[in-house]
């Protein structure tokens, strides 16, 4: 039996942990999942601490939540923060089968545990008599030294493996600016610099394409990455509308007849924006 | 302990590795080096085989020059080798044929694929290394005196054979030659693997039975001694099952009707040299093993099944010959002729008379030599015209008389003309069968008429008649090709006239086998002294 404090702590942490786990499972965006998992891990760390595994609890916070989960976040960022799973299941019956299996498995495990009738808990006070860290260290460097060494080798291998996997061999020598310019002239494609993105009085961001004299957008003015992601804020429609309004009000103020008023180019689909993933679904 | 036998087996094995490791390249010089090395290795093996035959004493123990190295001690498996008369004869056959096959296939492995590709770079090395590997494994199979060792090599030789069949076809195939070839290779492999699987079960079963009675060994001499002395008694049902397990594998390999259909495909699609390796060397392991293992290990079951096997082999004789008559493809014809001949060999073994079994052993050797001659000349013919169809030839004897002449000799040997080697063996088989099973012997004799039909019809259609347009200008045999055919023809003649070197070697082993199955030759009804009392 444990103290009431621990019981309270447990029930709070358990709710957080399960909530985090479910959140991780159900959140569409990977970033949210990662954050939910971090929450679960932190609550688990506290559980370790509560159970007398001080060292593990700290390691859980420092290594797991601090390092590993950050690695996850890095990769999520690398792959694309906004990328999210589609909700539509492509494999027929996979979701139902998975849920069924999960429920069945859970029931089995819990039933098994209940059946086991575990009531006697020795507690770690004896084992932790010299301190938890000292106790672990004794074991690691005596009884489990071989496994420890092998684990070291494993870690090094994993590190090298990760480097090998992500390393990209440079096939050609890197071209200098000069060479790039020469190549551009030689190919006669876009010899002058690219147009700058639209910087107006009200907008000055790289995700807004510049407008051509007739009010349509110059696609080249936005960087390719944003274009591919479909993260372009096309302001041309709005601009044209405002210009038309301006002309209108100017004409009103000047009292020009409607026939003499200058025509602004009609709003039109100027840019085929790439639909974002959400839109596609 | 002499190391002669292991040396005989090791030289081609090492040679195979060396040949495979020779520097690759597409240049003619590189290729020539490879071929020369491989040929030299095979000739060296021939020399060693000759040494084995020379040091073999016909009157001595059943297994001579024995060697034994412990292999898997917990199962009583030794890498044990030993030469008996039958094995020595077949070792000689193998050692003689392999250099000739290499010489015949001298250009078969020249690159067909685009120059410079990996395939073309390693092709020559691969071809010759595979041949040497097959040779090494076949030699071990003939010399192994341990059931397990035999089994391993019996199965292992499938691998190089598979690549030889599937990777190197003759250049006479149609547009879907590659597909046909891989079909043939896979068929070969599956058939033989199936047989091998059944045999593996039987090998294990044999060990279990033997171990139960305190004979935990795979050593053949030990097992046969225990069986014939009654120390090891396998109960009849188990014995029959084990016999069938062994026999099935050998019957697939031999091949016996109705398990033969892989042979025409394999022989038809591969190069002539490979076809010779299949029919003259590899298949002989099957019939050899029937004689050594089936009879020695399961004497009672052998006797029980002998009539059924004789009937199957009789069907094979007649059936193979009839189907050969109906063939349109030269190589397939030779294959079916071989099936007919294998019928004779199996018949001789299971007639269980000294004539039958000596005849069967001689038959293995003689069939190897004569079919090699026939098939290789057919291969030379096919390589000249680029077609395997009989209908594409005609009047070849006019333009290439030596080729036609040797082809005729091959055909005559196949139809067992007296004076040529196959006659001796075929007649012995027939006589041996007749003395015990007269009706089967008489029906089998029809085979000699059918053999004349297919052999001479093939000769008539390809070699005689007006010269076909496609054949005009066909060159006669070149020096290399003559060097291949001449020894074979000479051996065919020599062994036809004076087979005694072989019979002296084989007879004691056959007598020993017969004593293992407790059979003696049927006595003549009214015996007379041989030679009318003439002094020897």
């Amino acid at each position, binding site marked *: 039996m444990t103290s009431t404090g621990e019981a309270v702590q*447990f029930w709070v942490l358990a709710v957080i942990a399960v909530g985090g786990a479910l959140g991780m499972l159900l959140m569409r965006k990977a970033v949210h999942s990662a954050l939910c998992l971090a929450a679960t891990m932190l609550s688990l760390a506290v559980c370790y601490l509560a159970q007398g595994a001080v060292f593990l609890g700290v390691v*859980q916070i420092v290594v797991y939540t601090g*390092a590993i989960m950050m690695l996850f976040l890095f990769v999520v960022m690398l792959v694309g923060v906004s*990328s999210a799973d589609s909700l539509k299941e492509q494999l027929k019956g996979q979701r139902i089968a998975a*849920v069924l299996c999960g429920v069945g498995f859970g029931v089995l495990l819990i039933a098994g545990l209940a059946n086991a009738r575990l009531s006697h808990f020795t507690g770690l006070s004896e084992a932790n008599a010299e301190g938890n860290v000292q106790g672990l260290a004794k074991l690691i460097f005596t009884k489990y030294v071989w496994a420890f060494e092998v684990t070291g080798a494993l870690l090094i291998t*994993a590190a090298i493996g990760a480097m090998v996997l992500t390393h990209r061999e440079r096939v050609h020598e890197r071209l200098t600016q000069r060479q790039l310019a020469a190549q551009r002239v030689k190919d006669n494609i876009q010899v002058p610099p690219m147009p700058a993105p639209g910087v107006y009085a009200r907008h000055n961001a790289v995700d807004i394409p510049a407008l051509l004299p007739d009010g349509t957008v110059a696609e080249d003015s936005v960087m390719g990455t944003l274009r591919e992601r479909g993260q372009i804020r096309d302001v041309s429609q709005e601009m044209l509308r405002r210009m038309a309004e301006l002309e209108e009000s100017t004409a009103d103020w000047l009292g020009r007849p409607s026939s003499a008023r200058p025509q602004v180019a009609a709003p039109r689909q100027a840019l085929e924006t790439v639909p974002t993933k959400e839109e596609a679904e | 302990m002499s190391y002669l036998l292991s040396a005989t087996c090791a030289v081609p094995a090492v040679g195979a590795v060396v040949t495979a490791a020779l520097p690759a390249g597409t240049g003619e010089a590189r290729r020539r080096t490879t071929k020369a090395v491989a040929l030299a290795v095979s000739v060296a093996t021939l020399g060693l085989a000759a040494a084995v035959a020379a040091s073999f004493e016909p009157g001595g123990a059943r297994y001579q020059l024995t060697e034994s190295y412990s292999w898997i001690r917990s199962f009583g498996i030794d890498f044990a080798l030993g030469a008996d008369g039958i094995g020595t004869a077949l070792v000689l056959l193998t050692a003689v044929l392999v250099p000739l096959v290499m010489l015949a296939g001298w250009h078969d492995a020249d690159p067909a694929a685009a120059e410079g590709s990996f395939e073309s770079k390693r092709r020559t090395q691969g071809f010759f290394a595979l041949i040497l590997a097959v040779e090494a494994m076949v030699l071990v199979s003939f010399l192994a005196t341990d059931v397990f060792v035999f089994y391993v090599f019996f199965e292992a030789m499938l691998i190089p054979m598979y690549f030889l069949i599937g990777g190197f076809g003759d250049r006479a195939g149609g547009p879907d030659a590659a597909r046909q070839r891989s079909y043939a290779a896979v068929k070969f492999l599956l058939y033989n693997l199936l047989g091998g699987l059944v045999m593996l079960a039987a090998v294990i079963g044999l060990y279990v039975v033997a171990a139960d009675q305190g004979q935990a060994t795979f050593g053949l001499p030990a097992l046969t001694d225990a069986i014939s002395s009654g120390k090891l008694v396998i109960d009849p049902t188990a014995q029959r099952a084990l016999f069938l397990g062994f026999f099935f594998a050998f019957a697939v390999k031999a091949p016996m009707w109705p398990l033969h259909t892989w042979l025409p495909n394999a022989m038809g699609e591969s190069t002539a040299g490979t076809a010779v390796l299949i029919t003259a060397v590899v298949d002989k392991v099957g019939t050899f093993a029937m004689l050594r293992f089936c009879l020695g290990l399961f004497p009672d079951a052998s006797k029980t099944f002998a009539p059924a096997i004789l009937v199957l082999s009789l069907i094979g004789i007649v059936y193979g010959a009839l189907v050969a008559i109906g063939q349109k493809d030269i190589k397939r014809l030779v294959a079916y002729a071989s099936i007919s001949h294998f019928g004779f060999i199996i018949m001789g073994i299971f007639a269980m008379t000294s004539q039958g079994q000596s005849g069967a052993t001689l038959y293995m050797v003689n069939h190897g030599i004569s079919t090699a001659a026939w098939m290789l000349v057919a291969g030379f013919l096919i390589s000249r015209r680029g077609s395997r169809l009989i209908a594409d030839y005609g009047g070849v004897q006019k333009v290439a008389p030596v080729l036609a002449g040797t082809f005729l000799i091959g055909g005559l040997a196949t139809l067992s003309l007296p004076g040529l080697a196959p006659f001796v063996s075929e007649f012995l088989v027939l006589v041996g069968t007749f003395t015990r099973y007269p009706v089967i012997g008489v029906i089998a004799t029809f085979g000699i008429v059918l053999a004349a039909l297919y052999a001479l019809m093939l000769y008539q259609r390809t070699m005689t008649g007006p010269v076909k347009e496609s054949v005009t200008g066909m060159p006669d045999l070149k020096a290399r090709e003559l060097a291949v055919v001449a020894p074979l023809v000479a051996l065919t003649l020599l062994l036809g006239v004076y087979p005694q070197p072989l019979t002296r070697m084989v007879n004691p082993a056959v007598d020993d086998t017969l004593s293992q199955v407790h059979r003696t030759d049927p006595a003549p009804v009214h015996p007379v002294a041989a030679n009318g009392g003439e002094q020897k």
Partner: protein
Amino acid sequence: MNPVNYLYLAALLFTIGASGVLIRRNAIVLFMCVELMLNASNLALVTFSRMHGNLDGQILAFFTMVVAAAEVVVGLAIIVSIFRTRHSASVDDSNLMKL
């Protein structure tokens, strides 16, 4: 409270993780689910350690963490390199093993 509740919690988390592996398609999330399963088993190990009154369970949990770290490093590297070539982190897009 009976400490066995920790075990129930571990079982529940493990099950959620396993279901996640089956349901989610994003390879990164899938990995997180695996981590969750490992954590669940760690919790169980720590609880067992307490139950038996010795530290071996914690040692095992410690090793699990180390191996998990190694696994994550390699796994994420694989995901990154797959993403580079296929521009997708969905495990359903890597199905070349289908004939």
